[in-house]
């Protein structure tokens, strides 16, 4: 059953990435250099809408809190994000979109994937050093959210979950809507 869901949901995700333009590095690079905010608007809307639905689903008991999967916060998250940002800007690919782009026939994405497999391998080998350097020490208790939920600690746990998550979601949706598609048209 889980495998069937993986097939259906994975296929849906691949279609969504392709139709959104995320498998096209022109769209990624033009977003990052603040020329064409198409993908930025789409991503902000996607996060806002999915977050709103998720927290409504949790509130009415349609979604079990066990389905949540919050990753730990540590300084390596910031540093790793910054490293990923370098490669993201250079190539216009991130791990998911490179795999999807290669499937649409982009040959440069194949090189990204080979480099990526080596990069992941390098991390497997150097993981003990990163751990010893203290980069993986949890911050603020590690697996923590802003909005209250039944599974993880929340920084704003004293407030109603729907007010916190809903407020952030509405803010993201508003930004997605008012952000001009072309910021600096020359």
């Amino acid at each position, binding site marked *: 059953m889980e*495998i069937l869901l993986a097939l259906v949901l994975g296929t849906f995700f691949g279609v969504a990435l392709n139709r959104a333009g995320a498998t096209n590095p022109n769209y990624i690079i033009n977003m990052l250099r603040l020329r064409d905010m198409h993908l930025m608007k789409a991503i902000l809307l996607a996060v806002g809408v999915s977050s709103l639905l998720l927290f409504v689903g949790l509130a009415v008991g349609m979604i079990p809190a066990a389905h949540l999967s919050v990753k730990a916060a540590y300084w390596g998250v910031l540093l790793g*994000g910054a490293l990923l940002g370098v490669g993201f800007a250079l190539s216009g690919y991130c791990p998911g979109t490179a795999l999807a782009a290669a499937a649409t026939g982009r040959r440069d994405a194949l090189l990204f994937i080979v480099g990526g497999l080596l990069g992941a391998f390098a991390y497997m080998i150097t993981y003990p050093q990163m751990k010893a350097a203290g980069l993986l020490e949890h911050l603020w208790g590690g697996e923590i959210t802003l909005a209250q939920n039944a599974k993880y600690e929340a920084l704003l746990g004293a407030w109603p979950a729907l007010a916190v998550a809903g407020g952030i979601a509405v803010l993201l949706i508003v930004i997605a809507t008012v952000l001009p598609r072309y910021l600096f048209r020359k």
Partner: protein
Amino acid sequence: MNGILTWWKAGMLLGAAFFLTVLLVKPIGVSTQFVIFDAMLWDLVEPSLIVASDTVKSGFDSTNAYLAKSGGKYAAAAANPLNYSFIFVLATMFGAWLSSRLGGDRPDAKERVRPAVWVERFGANSSRSRYVTVFIAGFIVLYGARLAGGCTSGHMMSGMMQTAVSGYLFTLGLLITAVPLAMVLYNKGGNK
């Protein structure tokens, strides 16, 4: 007409993908599967890498500390390729292929080698430099993603959807380097 939806349709479709996965199973993540695939290859060359073990939670242990962490969950996933997350990523590739054949974004012969934005900036004879750059970029991206514990899907999209503090931290790190670098790298030159 390249099959790419307007921003709000694109956002609704992506949002639906992230919502449906957490509704039915768990949030989307991709970069872990690079480790799982590496581990499968490594285990083929060196079968002693991953071994069944009764003493760890997942039932599989590894001589590699990263594969052995968290009760050997990565070791177990590599020992059993037919697991949800690995199949999900393979299906994502299938979905992108299918979409590109059914009116979605499909690169032409030139685009397949390097994107138009690269040619605009570095000229028509830049295919080799594109390949080298993208190879290095892939290395940096996956090293960074594993250090961070997730990538754009797992941290940025799934993380911020759940209001995870780690998701905001990751997105901040990503934007700090990606935006200035893309502006310096691709806005240089006066052909705009």
